[in-house]
């Protein structure tokens, strides 16, 4: 196998060496429990609060409004379940989108089994939520709007400001799953009227097993994990100090390098998109041409199936995905690709390539070359392509 080309940064990212460096002392030296009262442990409490501060700063939020969780998924579960419980007196209706991550969708489905009502708003063919539909979905019993900041599969960035305004005007809580966006896009929770925001460390070159939920001050939200008095009584469990410190460091670096990374990745992303669309036939770009995450590309190649493509790319040392990591391997095509209107057989033939700041133009050139060859090979053995050609539709 050649040198590995990792183009699956939406699935997870490499932890930055500086982040690991920052974490290390908290395993074997400063290992104390931050809740303990002795000096040896209070340095850890301080480290946790510093990390909280770095994160708050990145969102222009109050430090005390950041609550650590073990993952983006936990933050999503907490936001939705905690709000449904806290606002039961007001109503039981949630509005979300059809293209949310499973952490939101499966949580909503779970709540539906327990009496909640959920409206799943459609998106247009580029993956942008239909705001008019959202507005119409609002009922007196609507307690929560949860719409992701940017989609993990097709990278589409949602009109968060507009949604925040609609939520505010209607006195409804607004939660956004920013697991993909935080660290890639500039986010100001006040300007955007965000009441709750979920994020995850391992998507922004931080450690796995750590995330957070931003909860606007004064917001009533029930606890999700009960036990000790950690996180100001709202989220129990001994603080994961090394990971919290690592997340704080990763966020600080992400903020510092944001603009530079954006510029670099957008240029490379567009280079990749243009090259694929030019050099390969019967391909479409999924998602929005410009309202998309700096590092995201997603294509559908007609007549071929995604998993075969992925395995063949893997044999060439290229890490890529079709759909999200946790659903690849499943038999259903991505709910996101179906939601933007792709027919099943085209949804099956999708490829997500997500860049990092370390991705180079040479890598992109190599990857496109490989994709081109593999797509040709798979088409040559595809009965769908055979039918297509026999029906005389083949371009000369």
């Amino acid at each position, binding site marked *: 196998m050649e040198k590995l080309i990792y183009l699956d940064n939406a699935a997870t990212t490499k932890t930055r060496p500086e982040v690991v460096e920052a974490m290390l002392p908290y395993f074997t030296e400063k290992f104390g429990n931050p809740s303990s009262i002795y000096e040896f442990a209070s340095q850890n409490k301080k480290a946790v609060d510093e990390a909280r501060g770095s994160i708050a700063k990145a969102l222009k939020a109050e430090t005390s409004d950041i609550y650590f969780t073990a993952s983006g998924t936990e933050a999503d579960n907490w936001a939705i379940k905690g709000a449904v419980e806290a606002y039961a007196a007001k109503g039981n209706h949630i509005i979300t989108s059809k293209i949310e991550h499973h952490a939101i969708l499966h949580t909503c489905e779970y709540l539906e089994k327990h009496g909640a009502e959920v409206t799943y708003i459609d998106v247009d063919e580029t993956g942008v939520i239909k705001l008019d539909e959202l507005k119409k979905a609002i009922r007196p019993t609507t307690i929560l709007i949860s719409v992701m900041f940017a989609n993990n599969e097709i990278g589409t960035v949602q009109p968060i400001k507009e949604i925040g305004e609609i939520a505010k005007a209607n006195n409804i809580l607004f939660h956004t799953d920013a697991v993909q966006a935080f660290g890639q896009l500039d986010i100001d929770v006040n300007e955007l009227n965000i009441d709750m925001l979920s994020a995850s460390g391992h998507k922004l070159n931080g450690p796995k097993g750590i995330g957070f939920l931003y909860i606007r001050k004064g917001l009533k939200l029930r606890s999700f994990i009960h036990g000790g008095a950690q996180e100001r009584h709202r989220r129990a469990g001994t603080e994961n100090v090394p990971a919290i410190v690592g997340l704080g460091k990763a966020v600080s670096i992400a903020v510092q390098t944001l603009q530079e990374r954006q510029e670099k990745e957008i240029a490379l992303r567009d280079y990749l998109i243009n090259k694929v669309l030019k050099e390969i036939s019967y391909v479409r770009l999924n998602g929005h041409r410009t309202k998309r995450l700096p590092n995201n590309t997603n294509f559908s190649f007609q007549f071929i*199936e995604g*998993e075969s493509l992925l395995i063949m790319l893997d044999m060439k040392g290229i890490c890529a995905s079709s759909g999200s990591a946790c659903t690849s391997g499943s*038999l259903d095509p991505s709910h996101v690709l179906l939601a933007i209107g792709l027919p*099943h057989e085209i949804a099956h033939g999708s490829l997500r390539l997500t860049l990092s700041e370390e991705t180079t133009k040479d890598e992109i050139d190599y990857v496109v070359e490989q994709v081109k060859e593999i797509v040709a090979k798979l088409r040559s*053995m*595809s*009965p*769908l392509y055979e039918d297509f050609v026999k029906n005389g539709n083949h371009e000369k």
Partner: protein
Amino acid sequence: MYSEKVMDHFSNPRNVGEIENASGVGTVGNAKCGDIMRIYLDINESGIIDDVKFKTFGCGAAVATSSMATELVKGKTIQEALNITNKAVMEALDGLPKAKIHCSLLAEEAIHAALWDYATKNNIKIEGLEKPKTDIGEEEEEINY
């Protein structure tokens, strides 16, 4: 995820292609499930499968099972081909992940469909062959919400 045998048959699939004026052609599966398999058979007067080709739209396991299935039927009698089960295909591939067992069923089904096509064209009845389903369903995995 896949055995070495599966990877071998996936990366170097045997018998890919078409047969013009084949004795029988069978296509099974559907795009919704993400797998379509087409098998071409050339059957001589003695009822021996002289040649076999396939085309498959599908995952690694779908390609590998198609490849292995064509290898297994090549040179066999119709009756022998009919008796090749999905289990035999899987065993020949040193196993498949649970989620991919349906691919081996699809391969078995594709052979049957091609044989059925042959029988229909030649107006003969093949002992033990039933009209193939045109669609292979998915078993639902139990999910615990």
